[in-house]
């Protein structure tokens, strides 16, 4: 299928009409790839308790949202919103700041890639003041099958169509504990773009949980880590914004558990760099973490934080 002279949306449309699955990693036009250098910094971490304002400061340090979103663009936001317990979901002030910046930059449409529960936006006092911006956020519940040729554990995924069709993809996770992989952040947040049956394959491959009891669970943790690295081959975000404000430090991902309050918002042009930086808030070394190791083996992400231009505010 020719793709040299078409844009992303047209590409996805033609694949769907042809009934063909999309092959990630080598067919999608290069414009989808992340990691483009914009401003003077690749990562900015802002500390303080004004999370909305600090989100804007962090993005400004990377060149401002206009460096990522152009007038008329559609933007897809992947927000870790489904949970209830404190420290388990992205503080809504952070995606609201992102929405405002995107609209100010001239975004035409904003989609949530994983639908936020109806009470999610009410968790912030800003929800009333920003009801108009919240009203602009849409969600389309449609999945598309994607083949992942370079996937080692995950070869296929049912993924949100919005993830593939939006012009700009912004990943907005919370960093928190996870009993399976020890933590979850930008890379694992991509599971929020997948269907339930695909997510099950992250844990059990193609066998059921029942048979896994007989195999033991350690192998499943490695399967999970590899699958997470694989799914990020489909598309990586132009911008990652990590909530490290009030985070679950034990019993993740659902809690309840101990809460830590680093009060930091981290914006980064590279999702792996964002992850390498953020895990320190859980007392982890990124070098010990299989998810990051497998991502690097796939060839994306910096080799270390020394390659990342970091600003702390």
């Amino acid at each position: 299928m020719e793709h040299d002279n078409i844009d992303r949306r047209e590409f996805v449309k033609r694949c769907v009409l042809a009934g063909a699955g999309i092959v990630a990693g080598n067919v999608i036009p290069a414009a989808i790839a992340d990691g483009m250098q914009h401003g003077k910094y690749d990562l900015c971490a802002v500390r303080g308790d004004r999370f909305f304002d600090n989100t804007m400061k962090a993005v400004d340090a990377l060149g401002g949202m206009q460096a990522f979103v152009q007038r008329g663009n559609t933007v897809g936001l992947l927000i870790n919103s489904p949970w209830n317990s404190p420290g388990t979901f992205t503080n809504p002030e952070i995606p609201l700041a992102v929405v405002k910046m995107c609209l100010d930059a001239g975004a035409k449409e904003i989609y949530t890639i994983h639908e936020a529960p109806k009470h999610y936006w009410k968790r912030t006092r800003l929800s009333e003041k920003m009801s108009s911006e919240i009203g602009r956020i849409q969600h389309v519940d449609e999945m598309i099958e994607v083949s992942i040729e370079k996937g080692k554990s995950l070869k296929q995924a049912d993924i949100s169509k919005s993830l593939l069709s939006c012009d700009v993809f912004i990943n907005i996770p919370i960093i928190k504990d996870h009993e399976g992989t020890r933590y979850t952040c930008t890379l694992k947040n991509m599971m929020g773009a997948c269907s339930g049956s695909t997510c099950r394959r992250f844990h059990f491959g193609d066998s059921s949980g029942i048979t896994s009891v007989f195999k033991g669970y350690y192998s499943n943790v490695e399967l999970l880590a590899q699958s997470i690295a694989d799914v990020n081959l489909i598309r990586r975000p132009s911008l990652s914004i990590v909530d490290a404000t009030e985070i679950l430090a034990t019993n993740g991902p659902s809690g309840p558990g101990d809460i830590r309050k680093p009060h930091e918002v981290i914006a980064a042009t590279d999702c792996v760099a964002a992850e390498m930086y953020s895990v320190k808030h859980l007392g982890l070394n990124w070098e010990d973490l299989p998810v990051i190791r497998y991502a690097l083996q796939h060839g994306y992400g910096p080799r270390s934080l020394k390659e990342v231009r970091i600003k702390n505010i």
Partner: protein
Amino acid sequence: MHTSRHTLLVAALLLAGATSALGQSPGDSLLRLLPRPGDLHGWSTLEGPRIYNGEDLFQLIDGGAVLFLEYGYRRTVAVEYRDADDKSINLEIYEMQDPEGAYGIYSIRSGENGRAAEFGQESIVNSYFIMFWKSTYYITIGGSDTSAGCRRGLEMVAKAIDRNISTVGERPRILSLLPRRHLIKQSFVRGTLGLSSIYMPELKDLSRFTEGTLGKYPGYTLLLLSYGDSANARIHFAGITEDFRSSQRFRRFRFADRIVSVTDDRRRSICVSQSGQYLLYSLSARASTARRACKRVLDSLPRL
């Protein structure tokens, strides 16, 4: 008394079948544990109750489910309550296959930062949640915030459930093999996920241990793993000894008085020894501390 994971699973499946044959849903027993309408003044049910069986648990707690499966999980009931001020309480009652599993999950998830409370057989209270275990049940009750109203609601829910569970269970016997003196925190393990707090990738081969206990003390940690019989334990001791001797992650290998000691690439001193069906590990920043702790416990272990 140890029961293998396989036997527990078969027993659970048979029980589920038998219960269904009697015309009862397996979830009915869980529903009877829930607070009754008059128990929760000022709170009403917003969502649920909803029952999760087996792998369905992933829908409730996503990847957190793997830990419950490791400990022998049966089913869960989840309910959300709300009050007039829009505060919410999320209740989850987990039915495990045996009291050891319920205790095990509690021992891992209760952490070190809560305050001991009076619910169930053991419980903790944190600023916004209560957690306890009783009989084959592990219970978490989480509030939407740390307000006094939410905390009062948590206590009402906890008291009601504690009252409704009429049986008790025994803690795993292996716990008594570690010294109680100076013990800060102890947990019961049934698989490698329960060991994630100590970084030792070599332990992945120990998925064949039958059960274990992890004890945290001032300046050192003890890990005692049971392999069912001494022949099995000897094989694993030989295996980990070889890993310690040959892996580039370890230095200063020494084998004396039945104890193997090394220093890892994080400058931790690790000792391991075998006694009967058990392997005993001690970890410390100081070699002398690790060795002394290992020797003290080794002398007290039953040689079966």
